[in-house]
């Protein structure tokens, strides 16, 4: 058989096989998993959270709390990390800054952020942890480090007229140690933490 003819014959068999495999691996397999997923609907549907009966997003996906244009609007909330996803925490545009480790613009941005956080919290610039001045890989990081959370406790308590101890307790409740005690890093979920704050009522009201 000529090579070209054989290649055509093999391709034709390949196409038929591909269509059949597409049904098995591309339709049946994910459909079965959709069924299995509904046995754990909360997780399979994105760990959505509700506040006063309305869904306010996912506990896994970070949000903006207040806007950069109106810094005062940010003060009653624990602030998440800087985000490179769209204009910030936009799940339609996930991603990182992708700036290199010696990129001059990135160094400047980090220094500006450090000064801004230090002045917002009224602490020395050297007290600001790394996660507070860097953007995450996804741009949707729901977490901050326990150190960054601790840095924000006094300001949030003051803005909301809450006892510091109560805010500290909420931080504690939303802190996750390393998985199984050794995988990954300790973290504080800003989304669930701020949801708990919101449940206590609006600031000073």
């Amino acid at each position: 058989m000529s090579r070209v003819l054989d290649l055509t014959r093999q391709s034709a068999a390949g196409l038929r096989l591909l269509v059949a495999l597409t049904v098995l691996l591309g339709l049946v397999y994910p459909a079965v998993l959709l069924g299995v997923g509904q046995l754990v609907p909360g997780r399979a549907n994105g760990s959505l959270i509700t506040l006063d009966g309305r869904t306010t997003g996912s506990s896994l996906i970070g949000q903006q709390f207040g806007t950069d244009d109106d810094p005062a609007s940010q003060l009653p909330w624990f602030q998440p990390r800087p985000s490179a996803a769209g204009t910030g925490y936009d799940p339609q545009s996930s991603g990182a800054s992708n700036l290199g480790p010696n990129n001059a613009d990135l160094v400047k941005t980090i220094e500006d952020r450090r000064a801004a956080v230090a002045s917002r919290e009224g602490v020395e610039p050297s007290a600001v942890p790394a996660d507070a001045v860097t953007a995450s890989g996804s741009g949707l990081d729901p977490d901050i480090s326990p150190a960054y959370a601790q840095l924000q406790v006094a300001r949030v308590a003051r803005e909301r007229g809450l006892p510091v101890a109560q805010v500290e307790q909420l931080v504690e409740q939303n802190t996750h140690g390393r998985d199984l005690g050794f995988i990954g890093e300790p973290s504080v979920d800003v989304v669930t933490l701020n949801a708990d704050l919101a449940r206590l009522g609006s600031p000073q009201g």
Partner: protein
Amino acid sequence: MSALSDSAAGFLTIAVLVVALAAVHAPLGDFMARVYTSTRHLRVERFLYRVAGIDPDAEQRWPVYARAVLGFSFVSVLFLYAFQRLQAWLPLSLGFAGVAPATAWNTAISFVTNTNWQSYSGESTMGHLVQAAGLAVQNFTSAAVGMAVAVALVRGFTRSRTERIGSFWVDLVRTCVRILLPLSVVAAVVMLLGGVVQNLAGPTAYTTIAGGTQTITGGPIASQEAIKELGTNGGGFFNANSAHPFEGPTAWVSLFQVFLMLAIPFSLPRTFGRLVGDKRHGYAVLGVMGALWLAAVSLTVWAEVTGAGAAPQAAGGAMEGKEVRFGEVLTALFGASTTSTSTGAINGAHDSLTAAGGGVAMLNMMLGEVSPGGTGSGLYGLLVLAVIAVFLAGLMVGRTPELLGKKIGKGEVTLVALYVLATPTLLLVGAALTAGIPSLRDASLQDDGAHGLSEVLYAYASASNNNGSAFAGFGAATDYQNVALALCMVFGRFVPMLLVIALAGRLASQAPVPVTAGTLPTHTPLFASLVTVVVIVVAGLTYFPALALAPIAEALS
């Protein structure tokens, strides 16, 4: 539980991963050996053969095997291209238009070649049906094609005086049906429990806690995530890949994903040992792969935890591009493993890794991805380097080189030499064109100086070695880069593959050479060390000048 120190937690993470891989490699490797030697056909397999009009008991000579590989891959590219272009008319498109021609061509080739380079952003380009029934199907089949070719090469060693090296169709179907599908189901269920999403939700707008608006899209993610790692594919459902909280919600899920991408490549040496009838040969291959992987992991973890570079120093830690829940150690472990295999998934931004960490990631790919490499491609890549090692050893002692009872003559060495030259040629020529032509350079480079060169080198290393990860600051979405990188993916995948299939045919047709006192033993730690040196020297001689100007210069500056 009292908190562990950072370094104890890091060591324990890597130790647990190694123990898990050690525990799984023997049963999984033995199982795969049985799959490829079984004479039975399952009912679903018979059905697939009947639909395709294939006689599963007809074995192929190497040219036919090669044409089957090419034919299947060719129609896969056309099918996936058409699927993306027609997206607007298909269900579950989420309102997205058909994918633009250059992007669709790049993506079709990228997924068929097991590269899974993404010049698109999943959440704003691909609907659920294209993801699940288009892209994810290629996650299965492209992985299976690599494993089929690896098994064909092993048959070249185990068979004698025959023209036949097996049936590509049977190898392909069995890999999908018996190995990848059941493992994917288990892996997907585990990830579902960890919070990876599996639904059909389109973009849904929510009012956030503070009163803003956020639009979140779900999708059949867990099912795709499982085969993305197991098949060393790496194409993320979302732009942020496994850093996205819906793909990598927790640290243990991310570690589990590292385990998945390493499981099959580290088990195939056992399969190889079983098939050649001497487990020690498997251990020698495993030893080379394991040593290189562990060295890469150690270096990357050290680089990221140390955090050299102006930005990490300014921030007080290399956290740019990293998730808090993963931290430096898990991101480094993931990054070293994804580039040691041909996965290319990421749980943090590689462009923002330290110069040394990013350099190791690049070097992992430049080694030809044999530590342990992609599903199948890692094993055949390493066996090719073992052929070079026996050839060199033969030159040194003046004996005719042999491997597993097969003479390594002029024909075999020619094929192997071409294999070793193919990828570096694509990588260096491709990178040189972009780095050397000002208009191309300005269109795609984000950073200046050494890091800019790293971005180009990384892109062409990734495409030519079918990895798919990126220094994502590199602007790859131009028409030129879409086409040029796709060409590197095609030739980087199929030229080595065809040479391997031809080598399988030559070896299978030989009569076996009896083992004598003069035969170099190829299952010893000494031989494994020799192969390791060959891997490093071949890549080192090829790439050192380029590496010296890019990551090494940046790390030392």
